[in-house]
């Protein structure tokens, strides 16, 4: 994959295995967010080829990505994640509305509510009810709702961009548990993280980027903080 922007990612090629957590390490400015947003169809690419289960697929928009069972949890929860003035239920259901449409093009609100409530319970979202506005929830609970939004679409591939940024320790731990559980269910996960303990502890493999280029893919066994830092600064200085 190569971005149309010459300063962004170039010649990045990797494969993602079923049921693994692939961490993406690197410093700020390594173009990691740009890379996964491009995978999700949010950014244009000069060269970009995706092969899912042996089939080449075209992803030019988030709608395409959804169709191929890809989900994206963005880094900026407030800017590109939540709908502050809408309820928890609406925030959860928004990416999955097709599933609630009956043959007359009307939405089945009861199903929507049941799904949202179940999902909130599974993810242990703390809230008074699914009718509560999401802006009244804590950051960790908002993040869980966003995760719930994508889980309702039953994705095979989850792209998580700094999934625990700015949330409290308790919720952080819960999100780790959820991610590992999803991997165990056979979902493939790409997780960008700038926190060393997080990326080392969670990932099966760690891919490191520096200034838009892929500098190495480390196995869990030989990944250390020093190795990651060495790869993350390979083209610097």
């Amino acid at each position, binding site marked *: 994959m190569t971005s149309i922007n010459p300063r962004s990612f170039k010649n990045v090629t990797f494969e993602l295995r079923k049921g693994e957590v692939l961490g993406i390490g690197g410093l700020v400015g390594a173009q990691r967010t740009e890379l996964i947003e491009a995978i999700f169809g*949010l950014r244009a690419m000069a060269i970009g080829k995706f092969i899912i289960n042996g089939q080449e697929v075209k992803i030019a928009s988030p709608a395409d990505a959804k169709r191929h069972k890809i989900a994206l949890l963005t880094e900026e929860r407030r800017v590109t994640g939540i709908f502050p003035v809408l309820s928890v239920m609406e925030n959860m259901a928004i990416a999955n509305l097709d599933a609630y449409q009956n043959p007359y093009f009307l939405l089945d609100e009861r199903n929507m509510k049941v799904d949202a409530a179940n999902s909130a319970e599974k993810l242990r979202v703390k809230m008074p009810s699914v009718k509560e506005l999401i802006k009244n929830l804590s950051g960790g609970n908002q993040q869980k709702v966003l995760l719930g939004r994508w889980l309702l679409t039953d994705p095979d591939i989850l792209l998580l961009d700094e999934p625990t940024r700015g949330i409290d320790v308790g919720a952080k731990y819960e999100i780790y548990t959820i991610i590992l559980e999803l991997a165990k269910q056979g979902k493939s996960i790409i997780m960008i993280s700038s926190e060393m303990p997080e990326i080392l502890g969670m990932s099966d493999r760690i891919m490191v980027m520096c200034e838009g280029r892929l500098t190495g893919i480390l196995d869990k066994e030989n990944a250390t903080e020093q190795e990651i830092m060495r790869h993350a600064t390979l083209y610097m200085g």
Partner: protein
Amino acid sequence: MEMNLKKSKEFALQYAIYGVLIVLIVAIAVYNSNFLSINTLRDILMQSSTRVIIALGAGFILITAGVDLSAGRVVGLAAVLSASMLQVADYSRRFFPDLPDLPIWIPILVAILAGLLVGILNGWIVAKFSVPPFIATLGTFVMVYGINSIYFDMKPNESQPIGGLRPDFTEIGSGSLGNGPYSIPYIVIIALVVAFIVWVIFNKTKLGKNMYAIGGNVNAATVSGINVGRNLIMIYAIAGALYGFAGVLEAARTGGATNNYGNMYELDAIAACVVGGVSTTGGIGTVPGSLGGVVIFTVINYGLTFVGMNPYWQLIIKGLIIVAAVAVDIRKYISKK
């Protein structure tokens, strides 16, 4: 306890406007007890009917965090278009002297389609070229007035008011179901049916949910896989069709049309929505709220005229209410931060 206090304060802010309405009605009734009559109610509902349809169109756009200034001019265009094709055969100044009697639905459909086209144009400009809605619809506002005026000025009409409308058409605007003071005007029934349809779109369809999402956070809507451009075009198109339909009803209600019909109606519609709780920052707004807003404005208009207040003073009061309503709305928004 503190939570309860906060909740009740929020509640009070939310419904403050209905308090204003009640105070207003009581004050006018104390001043002149004839105000409280079935005829007053009937007049107020009739006057609200076309405004409700326009306000619902404006509400669609406001909820997406946009604004549509073209509404009033589309009303004018639709009124002229429908009226020009629905004159009685023996009227001396016919717009189309040799036009045969058309089935009534054809001119109505043409007028609604004209509104729909303007709406599609608005949505396309906003979605495709990222022109701010205020400017995009300001442009079509001016253009539509120009187009309407050229049509209105065609020979042999040459900018004369269009009159002599067919009775089967004016019946829609001024007729009633039943007789006497308890009859229900058709136009009120039509407005309620339109309001119900819009309520269904807002609450029970994918388009409605997408509309709230786009207004609530357009970036998050994009990430969620919503095709923002396509949804915006559909929303502006529906709004345009509603303005068109309202224009048809205005022609039917008043029994005529000129190119100045609908002038400034968009401002009344936007004001009514805002007073009815539609947020100017997007993502918030309900059909009952918009209906309430329209009725409040009609009560102010009608009530203050009823007690004989100088119309210029009425404008000042209207302006104050609009500003107060937005200030309360913004306060709700700020207090959450």
